Each structure stands twice: as C-alpha cells, then as structure tokens.
C-alpha cells in the first residue's frame, strides 16, 4: 500500500478555551482530489494551517508529503502549493514582480511553466495586484501556488467571493491543470456542488471532528433515501443507521447509511405500501450527516 500524501492523527487545537479541533483523523491518498467539506467555522482553515505548520496543535500528528508539519515545516512548504481563502497579496506589486518575488522562495521554481500558466490564466503581467479583478486575483494565487510544480496542492475555499461564472472558470482551470499531472489536491470548501464533480474522496468535518470520510462514489452508493408510508406500529428507532428522518404529509423520508439488502427488507416491513428508493447528491449527504434528525419520530 502506498504512503498517503497527507496523514492526520488525533489532531487537537484550541484557541484559548475554545476547542476547534477535537481529534481529527484523516488520510489523503496520493494523486487524489480530496474534498474537505464542512460548515463555516467548523475548523477547516485551522486544520489546513496546522498542516502547513503555521500553528502548533495542542496534540496529534500531521504528516504532509512524508514530512512532519511541526518539525519539517520548510520541507513541506517547498513541496506544496497553497492557496488561502480570499487570498490577499501585496497590492502595490505588479503581477510580474510578485511572481518573481514568490519564485525567489523556491529553489525549483519552473519559470517556463509559470509563464505558460500566466498565459493560460490570461494574467496581465504589468498590472498591479490591487488592480486585478477577483477572478484574476484567484488565478494569480493559483499560479503562485503551482509555479514550482508541487506534489500536493492545498486549496482553502479558493472560490470564496467569486461570481458563478468566475468560479466555474477557476474550477475548470484547476481540473485542467491538476487532474492530468497526478498531483494530490486537498480542496476545502463549503460549496458542495463545486466539489462534487471533481472530488475522488470526501471528508466531512463537523464540530471539530471528521464525521464521515470515504470515496465520493461509495458514499453516493451506500447512502440512500427511502420514501414510504409507515405502518401505525412502525418503530424506526430500531434502525441503526438512520441519518435523517423527514415527515412528508402522510409519508416519511429516511436517509440511511451503509445501506444493504437486509436493511432494505427491514424498512419494507415498516411500510404499508412498499418504498421508493433514490440516491443522494453530496449536498444531501452533507445535510443528512450534519443537521440530520436521527430517529426522533416525534420530531419527524
């Protein structure tokens, strides 16, 4: 088995008395696009900062590209490309100058590749950074993250603040540039629909812990929704893997994880007229995990 690109074990972090990360465990396979999703304020950026060695965790371990985040910070930073949410750069610098300036930090900066990227991303080299549009700003940040051809790219909500067209444009570039180069992409976002089409793997972070992680396709297959008319004596509390129960007029909607034939048979016994089974999209899966009603029939 190959070594994961990123491996996090039991990561804890606190801002004063506020516990932000409460034991995050994560493995990001090499060459994958990994979607890291969670609501605002759940600890996504904190996890990323810790991965980059920008802050020291209370406890836990974080290995990025085979290097320890806390003791081999410089090695990690040489090998990764990072783009922060709403990335700000020196506004007074011209695009060409900031590329040169950032290139100075990397011994392996690929000037030819960065020039190609600038062309692909249609970046004007003689314009000051503060004069760039939001979309151009994101493109520049992407170029600065990729110019040294990193093994791992970490994107922290990179499309924050972009309009829908700019967002699609940006994502298209990300897919074009990264998917073919076997680069590991760690993509953090709270916009699930932008992750869904590209992510091979998903991890859902809620309240400082990973509540679900796995391949995107497997999640879609194993988490199913059943719509049925329940028998008067139906006891949904007996079902162990209910993620969400919703009451829809006379019917009930059940979101079930790790769904197999035995569970389906059990659900059938609780229904008065059979059931209707559908797949969930990522948005619905996320909703079921994060704010789902787990088996409280009265609430349903």
């Amino acid at each position: 088995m190959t070594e994961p690109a990123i491996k996090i074990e039991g990561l804890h972090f606190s801002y004063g008395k506020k516990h932000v990360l409460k034991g995050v465990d994560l493995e990001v396979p090499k060459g994958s696009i990994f979607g890291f999703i969670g609501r605002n304020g759940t600890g996504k950026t904190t996890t990323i900062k810790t991965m980059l060695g920008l802050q020291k965790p209370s406890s836990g371990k974080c290995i990025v590209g085979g290097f320890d985040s806390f003791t081999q910070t410089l090695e990690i930073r040489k090998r990764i490309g990072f783009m922060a949410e709403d990335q700000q750069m020196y506004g007074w610098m011209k695009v060409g100058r900031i590329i040169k300036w950032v290139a100075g930090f990397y011994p392996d900066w690929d000037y030819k590749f960065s020039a190609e990227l600038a062309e692909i991303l249609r970046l004007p080299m003689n314009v000051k950074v503060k004069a760039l549009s939001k979309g151009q700003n994101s493109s520049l940040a992407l170029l600065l993250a990729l110019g040294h051809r990193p093994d791992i790219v970490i994107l922290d909500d990179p499309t924050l603040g972009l309009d829908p067209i700019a967002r699609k444009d940006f994502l298209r570039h990300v897919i074009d540039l990264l998917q073919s180069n076997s680069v590991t992409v760690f993509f953090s976002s709270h916009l699930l629909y932008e992750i869904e089409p590209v992510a091979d793997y998903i991890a859902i972070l809620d309240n400082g812990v990973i509540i679900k992680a796995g391949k995107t396709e497997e999640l879609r297959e194993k988490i199913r929704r059943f719509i049925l008319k329940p028998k008067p004596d139906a006891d949904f509390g007996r079902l162990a893997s209910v993620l969400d129960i919703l009451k829809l007029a006379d019917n009930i909607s059940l979101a079930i994880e790790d769904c197999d034939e035995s569970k389906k048979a059990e659900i059938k016994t609780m229904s008065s007229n059979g059931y209707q089974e559908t797949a969930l999209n990522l948005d619905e899966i996320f909703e079921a995990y994060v704010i789902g009603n787990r088996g409280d029939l009265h609430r349903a």
Partner: protein
Amino acid sequence: MKIQGIIHQQICQFKWHLLACFGLIMVLPIEEALVNFKDGLGFRCGSMVLVSIMFSPLLAGLIACANVQGDMDQKLYIFWRSKPAGIKLLVSLKFFVGLTASLIIMTCPLIFWLLSGNIIDTNSDILYSIPLSALLSIMTYSLCFGCNVLIRSTARAWLVGMLLAGFCLILPFILPLNYRDFVSDVIFGSRVYYPVIMLIISAAAFVFALFAAQYDWHLKTNLKGLLWVAGGLVFVLLMLFSSQVANIKVLQELEIEPFMLGRNDLDYAGDKVIFQEHNYVDIDNNKISFSNIDSNPDDIAVPITRPEGLEEYHTRDYPGRDKLIKVVGDNLYSFSILAYFSRERIDREGKPPLNRDIYEHAYLRSYKYTVNRWIPICEIDISECLTDHSYSQIALRLIDNKIIAIINNSFVLIDATNPEELKRLDTKLDVLKRPMGYIQERRKEFSIPLVPVEGIDIEDRIKLSIDLNYQYEGIDERSIVDIHDEKISFFLASYYDDIRRFDVTGWDSENIYCKLSTARPFTILEHMSSVYLGRVFVKNGKLYFSSKNTLLVFDIRSGDKIRKLGHFIRMDYSIQDIAVLDDDNILLCMRWDRNLSNYDSSEKNFLCLLKNPG
C-alpha cells in the same frame, strides 16, 4: 531564498514612509538654511539640525512600524508565511534593512550640516548628543518593530513602543535599582550606562520580534484597552514618583517672626541645638519653642582685645556663621579661627587692577556666652601656619577636649579642656598632603593620607583624615564617616550620579586604604535635586543628603545596600541649615523666596520639624 528579492520588496514596500520621514527630518534644517540665505548669511544651518536629530527617535519608531506593517496584515501574513522562507532570517532581514534605512535618514541632516560648513562652531556637549540620539533611535526602532510584530497595527504599535521606550528609560531612574552600578562595573565607567541600557533593550526587542514572528504570537488590542494600559503605566509612574516626594512627615512648620530674622543657622551645643546663636530650640510634644541661653550676669568675662599693630588689617573668621560650641558645666564656649589680612593692589597693563589678600596673622579664639553675647576670652597665635600667606583651605575640629586647627597644609593641636586657657600641644607645618578629588576609579583599592596628628584616638584620626580629604571646610560640625561594629565606612555623593559607600580596609602610619563597597544611584527625581548639591553627612547610622530644596535620608547600616528611608522636597524653598536632634527628629531652617522681581521681596523664613524616617 533569494535575499536580494526580499530586500527589494522591503525597500519598495516602505519607500513612501521613508520619503515622508526624510521630509520631516529635513524640513527644519532646510528652512533654517533658506532663512539664513534670505538674510544674507549664506546657505547654512546650525541648531535646527540638532533639533531634527532630537526628533529622530520618534521617526525611527514610525519607520519600524511602517517597515513590518505591510507584512503583518493577517491574510498577507499567511501568504508569505506559507512560502518556504526561514522566518527568523526574513524578519532579521526586514529589521536590518529598515534599521539601515532609518539610520541613513537620520544621517541626512548631519550631512547637510557638514555641507553647510559650520559644525566647528558647535561645542562638544552638543555633539555628544548626536550618537546618543542615534542610539535612542535604534532603541525606539527596535521596540516599535517588536511591538508591531506582536500587535500588527502601526499606530498602536508605535504608541506602545514609545511608551515602552519612555518606561525603559525612566523606570530605572525612578526605582533605586543597583543595576547601574553593575553595568558600570562591567564597562569600567559610569558615564556610558545610557548607551548600555539602550543597546541591551534594542537587542532584547529584536530577539523578541524574532520569536514573536516564529511562533506567531499575536496580541489582539483595542484602542480603549491600550489607552487603559497607557493610563495605568502613567499612574504607576506617578505613584513611583509620588512615593519619593515628601514622604517625610512634617511635625511642625513654624514661621520665624521678623524680630528673629538674621542668621538662620543651627548649632549643636551638647545635646541641645542653638538657633541664631542666642536661643535654645526646645521640642516638646513635637512642638518647637525657644528659650534663652541662661548665663550668669555676675559671671562677666573679660574680653580680649585685638592684638596691637593689627588695627589696619581686615579680618576673616572661620567657621563664621556656624559655631563650634563646647559645653562646660553651665557655660557655653565657642571656637573660631580669626585671620588678619592686608589687601594689595596689583596693576595690570591694559587690564583692570586685581586685589590680592595677604594673610599675615591668624589666631584661634575661644568665646564665652555671657549676657546674650559671645565674648572673646582667649586666643592663641597660630600665624606660623600661614607659610605662604594664603588662606585657601581652613578647617577646625573639636575631638574630646582637643582642637585641631588647620590652615592650608599645616595644623596646630590645642588643648581646650579649659576654653578660657587654651594650650598649644603641637604644631606641624606643611605636613598635610594635597587632598585627592572625587574618586573615579571604582574597582581598585585606593589610599587617603592619614593626618599625622598624635594624641588622639586612631578612629578619630581616620575620621578627620577622610572628612578633611573630601569636605575640608564644614568638618567642624559634619562628618561623612560612619563607624559601626568596628567597621569604618564613608559616603560620597556625586553630581547627577549616585551615593557611594567606601569601606576602610586598613591603614598604616601614613595612609588609609579604602575600597568601593556599593553605590546607590540617584533616581530621576533625585537627579533633579542633586543639581544643587548641598550637604552630605552621616549621623547615628543614617546618611543625610540635602540640596537646595530637598532632603534625602538613607539607611546605611541595615544590610550592604544603601536604602532610602525618606524624601522631603519643597518647591521654592531653600534649606539654610539642618540639625539632627537628640530625639532623632530633624530640624530644618528654610527660606521661602519667590522673589521673581527685585521690587517685590516676599521672603519668609521657617523652622521645620521633620519626623526622621525609618
């Protein structure tokens, strides 16, 4: 990491701030030069350059804040920190690039000054302030740099940096810390402690900035909080100041009636104190009262008259205003040296004539207090002591029943057991060595010449020798020597500096050997007082230091350190005389004088009874 790229970015980033500071620092010298040019004095500048340089520490702080502010915004901070840059190297580069730039800017007025060609006219004291300002600029720069790395807000970091700079410079002089003594010992000189403090603080601020950046220390502040902190600091400073002012309790302050005006001096007469030569000061229940000196009207002394042949001479007496008094039974006697001199006129070609006093006769006189008068009753001719007819140094001390009368380098020892019949015991001419000045050398043992007087106790001889060496006049009633538990120490106060204790380590037939034991630096407030250095004396284990309007009392016996016990200050007053009473309280003769105009005299005189602290 390519260093030149970082330096380029750094300079580009704060070039406008540098130009603004350059404009600010050059505006005064250029204006002065232009005004001079307009007035026909040529394009030259002078004093305004120094004013600009005095302001340079403030500008250096601004440059420091501007230097890092561009990188300290939270999101920019993550941008460059996420790059593979050695944080300490990067911050060090930024620090030194900014420091060099600010020092270059500080130098611009000097270059302008040199080019204007009148630097030679400036005196060396002012020139000394230039490197001091440069060091102060380095300190404010470093503190503001460190603060901005921590606080990440230009204005707040500058405010805090400047407050810290002020605090660092003032605090050591408010608190009587002995670190300055330590620093002086390390660097073998007491005048460079300011530069040492500034360099140490600068280095500490720089190291702090490195760690703050490395470990991402961030102090979140708000303006209200900072103002509270600033207010708190000012409050602490004021408290520290106030603890030093007027903490000696005044038991009574008595305005002296006009009829008592005259000689506002206090003289010791045994266990009593005499005020204005004719009244005992009685203290009862912390109240001052006066009583006449009793004398038997029938016991009228026969006054001696001026020796024959001296009618034409001018006279001068010592101790003059203060009296050296001896109590024998119910009678009071005092002693003084009376010298007779003629005045010679020296004509000088093309210059006004000079007067020179030629001393030809000197007498030691005793006086007896009889019917409200001090009547001269006996005298001994000590004219032989005037070996060179000058009267430059003179001293008198009563030790038990013996008087040592010193004129220049000669002395006479006189038996004063019966003041009405003085007896010469010994005379030694030109045996006293030239007194040595204030001790600069703080580490080595040094020696003081032992006065070759025989027939008095060795401790008294040592005491006399030390007092004579450092005080000369005034030793009739005061001493700087403390003898306690067979240990002999003496104390010196220097202008602007400190009070030092020297221990006597030994003696032989010619010298007393001494060594610096400890020093207690003056605080900033005491510095201000010590400009008018007055009296320093030791009595009953306490050191008294008085200047124009201040009295400081120190404990010199409990522990090795000199510990301050009390501070008394009265603005617009001047201390005329001090007496430490038998009950340990202190009596001051003071004059209040706010006579700003010559036509409106508003002088008042007071006797002030103070509770001796400690």
